[in-house]
């Protein structure tokens, strides 16, 4: 029998640089062990998921992380009174820390999460990646955080061009000259703030791995994917599941050494010498998480079950050579719905 639960999910922005929410919800809808009522949590009134009524039962607007944890908490209390939430799955990097900080309070209210610890969240941060690589014996490209555009001229002592200019949370651009690096510094810092991370460019093929750690060093799920079609924003618009033992070993090593708790995505680059470099650790499920469901590892379902305190056995296999091909789709929406979510913050 399926367990009936109410799950709140963020990341409903199924746009060209999509949040993972819709893919997570599709996984939960297909879960064999769960009968879910889905509560969408949105920041903006034009996040497409708000209007996907076949996937989301009810949506509430929530305050941006910059508004602080108190205002987030009071909004969640209101939503919980109405919806009796069992689990919340936050899907944005920028909102994870507030949710991690609220974990105990939410638990007292009866709401479960399954997130990395604050230490795990901090040490895998882009700014800390070199130390992370050293501590866990994982190859990472050389990088450093800079706080001022004036530091760019000195970069050629430590880096060779091209190099990658990265935002604190999102965005990355390849700069071939100091002038380009300067322009990207200004562009990305004005959007995401400081610091900006400068990373040595590694030429190669992009692979990603998504998985789930139980917090005790065990890998519950792991699915490697090769990007086949990359958008101008660097997002995978198409990908294929691959059977690369090295990626699986690297993923297991990451989970066992960090004792990772929750969903994650490893961004990897395979260079011409067939060495894998860890470019980034995303501390949540990726937007392509539905591929994991498609290949036989329902990571969103397993994550919810872990959050509920159930024992979850590790997945042992997945289908290789399954592709995901993303598409865009125009919904026709009544303006009254837009008015409702914009005015009342609920739909």
């Amino acid at each position, binding site marked *: 029998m399926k367990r009936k639960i109410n799950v709140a999910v963020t990341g409903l922005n199924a746009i060209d640089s999509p949040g993972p929410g819709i893919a997570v919800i599709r996984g939960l809808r297909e879960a064999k062990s769960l009968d879910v009522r889905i509560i969408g949590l949105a920041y903006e009134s034009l996040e497409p998921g708000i209007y996907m009524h076949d996937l989301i039962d009810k949506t509430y607007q929530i305050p941006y992380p910059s508004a602080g944890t108190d205002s987030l908490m009071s909004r969640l209390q209101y939503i919980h009174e109405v919806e009796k939430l069992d689990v919340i799955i936050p899907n944005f990097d920028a909102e994870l820390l507030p949710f991690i900080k609220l974990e105990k309070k939410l638990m007292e209210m009866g709401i479960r999460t399954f997130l990395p610890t604050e230490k795990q969240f901090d040490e895998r941060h882009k700014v800390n990646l070199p130390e992370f690589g050293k501590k866990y014996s994982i190859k990472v490209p050389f990088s450093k955080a800079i706080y001022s555009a004036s530091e760019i001229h000195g970069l050629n002592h430590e880096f060779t061009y091209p190099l990658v200019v990265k935002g604190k949370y999102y965005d990355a651009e390849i700069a071939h000259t100091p002038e380009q690096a300067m322009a990207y510094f200004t562009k990305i810092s004005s959007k995401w703030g400081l610091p900006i991370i400068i990373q040595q460019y590694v030429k190669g*093929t992009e*692979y990603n791995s998504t998985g789930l750690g139980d917090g005790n060093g065990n890998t519950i799920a792991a699915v490697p*994917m*090769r990007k*086949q079609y990359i958008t101008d924003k660097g997002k995978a618009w198409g*990908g*294929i*599941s*691959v*059977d*690369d*033992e090295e990626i699986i070993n690297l993923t297991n090593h990451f989970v066992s050494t960090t004792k990772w708790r929750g969903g994650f995505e490893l961004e990897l680059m395979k260079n011409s010498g*067939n060495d894998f470099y860890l470019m980034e650790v995303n501390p949540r499920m990726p937007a392509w998480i539905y591929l994991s469901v498609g290949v036989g590892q329902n990571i969103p379902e397993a994550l919810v079950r872990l959050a509920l305190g159930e024992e979850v056995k590790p997945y042992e296999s997945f289908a*290789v*050579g399954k592709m995901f091909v993303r598409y865009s789709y125009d919904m026709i929406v009544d303006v009254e719905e837009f008015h409702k979510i914009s005015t009342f913050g609920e739909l």
Partner: protein
Amino acid sequence: MKIRKNVAISESGYIFNPTTGESFSVNPIGIEIFYMIKEGKSYEEISKTILANFRTDEDTFEKDYHDFVGLLNHYLLIEKENEKEN
């Protein structure tokens, strides 16, 4: 020389390498040669079959065969000598 065990070829001539996720297309002669290599046939056996079935000479085949094998190697479709069988 051995084609990696997990490398598959479709009837239409698409070779899929599940380790790297790459796909390659080969023409009908390529399909035939690929199957013969996979079956463990020697260069001499393959050469004999191709020369009997296609209008080509030994020198041209030898050159094309080594080009083809070079590509299979380049795209990691052939097991390396020191590699364990998986």
